[in-house]
């Protein structure tokens, strides 16, 4: 058997499978561990199975199946002919039947590994050295099924990782007791094999270190959320995530900045304003907040004033006050006294700015709606500053529009602006002229529903609709 394997190094899966099956037939399917030869054959299978498993990533299932369906599949294998089945299915069967108790791995066993491209059987022209390497790899499968499951997973992944690492060496075994043998065997086999499956290289690495794999990326999000909550609750709470702020503020700030440069609704509602502030002030305040946090509580008041001065003297000034108040961190003794004062000072500015703030929020959102249209019409990438400029222009335009409409309505002796006034305005603007009428423009640019509202005869002369 071994000789036959050794002699034939054909990479074809079919031939290899045939060899395996031939080797399989004589031995009892139930407990392949009985004989050494059987073990060898089983060993042949195990690398197949392992490879396949790594391929299919259904290790658990395979393991369980293996224990149970060894006999069944063995028979199936023997009965079915290679040619009738695809090599892949056959190998899968082998996987199922392959006992975990793979013992020593003779070189021959290693060789008929290559399976299609997926499996790493490929040419186990394993060197004698590989034998030793494979031995430890195969031994672990003898463990119990549940442990095998895990070990199988680890085996596969470790093997692949091993392969990646020790391509040429075939020796190194980085981790885990199980990992090592598997890794060795994998590396050894892989080094010789031509078709290596990289199906689960990433998985292997991750699985090798379960701790790494388990680390949820959401941890960061949780921190941010907690941080925001802390911000909202009290200024004292801000002292806690002081360490995390440099990390937490960045993502939140960036996220919030990207979403809405004018996310003013949040401002003034809670101490977490600094997140919602516009970008330029945000950055300034962020640094300011950090400075305040880093500096001692005694520096808080000193910092607030320079921060205020440094910060842009716009509308966010009041916000900054509030923001800076919570920003000051640390010593609770100082905080207890300080927050009271800033809170009292904070309330009046809050009330004052509440009015204009609310008015600007929907106003800005409406303008931003048109600004988006601008960027769509421009068909070119735009800077954020350019968008802000567009909004300013729109503001001016709206003012002018209202003034004009007022004049026209007054000229007509009316107090209500009508369609005629608007048409006159557009005519004066040059949008409507003798060539292009208002109806044409309406049809061009407005959606159907609005068109119907504006042009009463749009659907005249068509089918009668049921009155609804």
């Amino acid at each position, binding site marked *: 058997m071994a000789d036959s394997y050794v002699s034939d190094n054909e990479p074809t899966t079919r031939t290899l499978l045939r060899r395996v099956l031939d080797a399989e037939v004589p031995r009892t399917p139930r407990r392949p561990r009985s004989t050494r030869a059987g073990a060898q054959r089983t060993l042949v299978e195990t690398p197949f199975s392992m490879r396949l498993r790594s391929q299919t990533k259904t290790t658990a299932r395979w393991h369980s199946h293996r224990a149970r369906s060894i006999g069944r599949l063995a028979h199936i294998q023997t009965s079915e002919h290679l040619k009738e089945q695809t090599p892949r299915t056959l190998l899968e069967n082998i996987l199922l039947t392959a006992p975990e108790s793979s013992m020593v791995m003779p070189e021959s066993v290693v060789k008929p590994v290559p399976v299609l491209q997926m499996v790493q059987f490929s040419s186990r022209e394993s060197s004698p050295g590989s034998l030793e390497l494979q031995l430890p790899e195969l031994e672990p499968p003898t463990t119990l099924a549940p442990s095998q499951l895990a070990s199988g997973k680890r085996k596969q992944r470790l093997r692949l990782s091993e392969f990646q690492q020790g391509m040429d060496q075939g020796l190194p075994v980085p981790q885990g007791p199980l990992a090592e043998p598997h890794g060795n065997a994998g590396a050894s086999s892989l080094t010789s094999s031509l078709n290596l499956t990289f199906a689960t290289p990433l998985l292997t690495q991750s699985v090798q270190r379960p701790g790494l794999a388990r680390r949820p990326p959401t941890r960061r999000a949780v921190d941010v959320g907690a941080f925001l909550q802390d911000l909202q609750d009290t200024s004292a709470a801000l002292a806690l995530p002081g360490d995390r702020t440099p990390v937490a503020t960045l993502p939140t700030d960036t996220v919030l900045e990207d979403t809405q440069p004018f996310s003013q609704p949040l401002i003034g509602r809670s101490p977490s304003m600094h997140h919602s502030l516009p970008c330029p002030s945000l950055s300034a305040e962020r640094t300011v907040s950090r400075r305040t946090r880093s500096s001692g509580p005694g520096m808080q008041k000193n910092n607030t004033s320079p921060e205020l001065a440094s910060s842009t003297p716009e509308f966010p000034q009041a916000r900054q006050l509030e923001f800076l108040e919570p920003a000051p961190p640390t010593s609770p003794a100082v905080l207890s006294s300080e927050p009271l004062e800033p809170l009292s000072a904070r309330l009046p500015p809050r009330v004052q700015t509440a009015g204009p703030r609310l008015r600007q929020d929907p106003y800005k959102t409406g303008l931003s709606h048109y600004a988006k*249209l601008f960027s769509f019409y421009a068909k070119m990438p735009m800077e954020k500053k350019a968008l802000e400029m567009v909004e300013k222009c729109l503001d001016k335009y709206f003012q002018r529009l209202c003034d004009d409409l007022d004049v026209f309505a007054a000229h007509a002796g009316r107090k209500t602006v*009508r369609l005629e006034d608007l048409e006159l305005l557009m005519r004066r603007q040059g*949008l409507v002229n003798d060539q292009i009428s208002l109806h044409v423009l309406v049809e061009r640019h407005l959606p159907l529903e609005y068109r119907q509202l504006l042009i009463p005869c749009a*659907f005249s002369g068509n089918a009668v609709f049921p009155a609804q």
Partner: protein
Amino acid sequence: MALSATVSQRKRVKRKAPRGFLKRLFKRQKPHLRLETSCDLLVHLNCLLFIRRLAEETRTDACKNKCGIIKDQHVLAAAKVMLKKSRG
């Protein structure tokens, strides 16, 4: 009668006009004036056309300066021209 065609279908207008926003805007600016029912649609149309022209002007401006990105100075220069044009 003109509306009957769309009544049966689900009413979801694409590119909706912010009618409430426009009405509120006009009210804020001219509280003594009243805006008619469908006037805000025309106002919206006016805005669309204005923005379209502004965008084209900005694009030509940016292309003139051989810029791949629209910058605020382009917008400013184009707005000056446009606001002059749409003086009414």
